[in-house]
């Protein structure tokens, strides 16, 4: 019982001393603000970090990072710093700032501050030790927070872009009443095939399509799962009452399909997109006739 109490008071005392040391540290960092900040900005330029930004910008950012850093040390809460790191990342990622640069500058700041502590407590080695005990975990945690914040922001942007690419990758276009075109560009992976099927079948539904031209001119190659999936998609479209015409099979794809023995008997294939559209128009009963050449009489009268 007595022991636990002792232990508790000891822990409390240690906590208090850590807090008081951090307070002392913060006071020191506030006092030395101008000088340390400049030193840091100089080191950043020297290490050729943040090359995408001007000197003034670096200095301005350095100032706010410094203040946030000191504040985080003082309060022991990281929310404000986290928010700032996210905000900073949002601003600098589009300018091409890399992860190693952000990690680099935060570590530089940590070292600059540590150096200044060395300088200040040079005389009293024990005190320096104790101050560093308080400083190091907090500083490392701050560095971690900023780096993780940056990486998370980057990942968020990457996810958003992936989403955008995915949405753009399979457009369903209506060219005529009841005639849809699906141009596919780029490699088709399993995920994309699924999406393609979904879009195609949904497109037939919503546009009440009778004929769909699936143009794969822009597809460099196809493997057998994807080819089989395409055949199945064509079959499913037929169950919805639509005809699918596949156009633009490159010689390579034609060879692969024949070699892997995909049953193309049920597929309606036409050489190019133009032929596909003509075939589709024929199926739909359209007939395209050229307009009469404008004669001189027409122009005058």
């Amino acid at each position, binding site marked *: 019982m007595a022991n636990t109490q002792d232990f508790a008071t000891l822990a409390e005392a240690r906590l208090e001393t850590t807090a008081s040391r951090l307070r002392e540290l913060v006071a020191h960092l506030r006092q030395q603000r101008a000088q340390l900040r400049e030193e840091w900005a100089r080191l950043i330029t020297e290490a050729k970090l943040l090359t995408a930004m001007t000197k003034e910008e670096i200095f301005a950012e350095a100032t706010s990072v410094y203040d946030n850093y000191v504040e985080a040390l003082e309060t022991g809460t990281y929310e404000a710093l986290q928010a700032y790191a996210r905000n900073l990342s949002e601003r600098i990622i589009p300018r091409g700032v890399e992860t190693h640069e952000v990690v680099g500058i935060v570590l530089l700041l940590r070292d600059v501050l540590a150096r200044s502590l060395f300088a200040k407590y040079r005389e009293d080695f024990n005190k320096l030790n104790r101050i560093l005990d308080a400083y190091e975990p907090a500083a490392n945690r701050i560095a971690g927070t900023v780096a993780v914040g940056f990486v998370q922001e980057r990942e968020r942007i990457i996810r958003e872009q992936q989403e955008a690419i995915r949405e753009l990758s399979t457009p369903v276009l209506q060219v005529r009443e009841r005639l849809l075109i699906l141009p596919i560009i780029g490699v088709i992976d399993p995920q994309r095939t699924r999406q393609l099927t979904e879009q195609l079948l949904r497109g037939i539904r919503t546009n009440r399509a009778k004929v769909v031209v699936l143009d794969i001119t822009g597809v460099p190659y196809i493997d057998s799962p994807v080819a089989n999936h395409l055949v199945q998609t064509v079959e499913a479209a037929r169950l919805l*009452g639509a005809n699918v015409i596949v156009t633009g099979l490159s010689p390579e794809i034609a060879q692969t399909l024949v070699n892997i023995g995909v049953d193309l008997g049920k597929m309606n294939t036409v050489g190019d997109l133009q032929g596909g559209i003509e075939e589709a128009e024929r199926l739909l009963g359209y007939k395209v006739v050229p307009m009469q050449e404008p004669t001189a009489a027409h122009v005058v009268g």
Partner: protein
Amino acid sequence: MQVPILKQGAYLIATVQSALTDEDLKQLRDTLVVSVSKVRARGVIVDVTALDVIDSFATRTLRDVAHMIRLRGAETVICGIQPEVAFSMVKLGLSLEGIATSLDLEEGLAYLDRKGKGPGQEVGTHR
């Protein structure tokens, strides 16, 4: 659950309203085959818009219906297969080969009208 069969001009329209048991399917098949000549129908439309699942038995029954009705001198159209259902049918290797399918009832009627007028285009069937 019985499937109501309506006569509309020269066509019979069977609209499936809810999931069907195998018994229901067999009954639908028998009723259609009997009534097609009773009312001298030229075409039969089976509307499956309400079905979320079409299993192998249902596929086979639909195929049988179409073939039997053809032997009885009429044409069959299966209409309203849902996109998801269509794809899972294909995935399971269930096909309605040689049988006309259409997007919805309207399309099905249009198809039968075209068929009735002699050789027209056959969008939606296998050549």
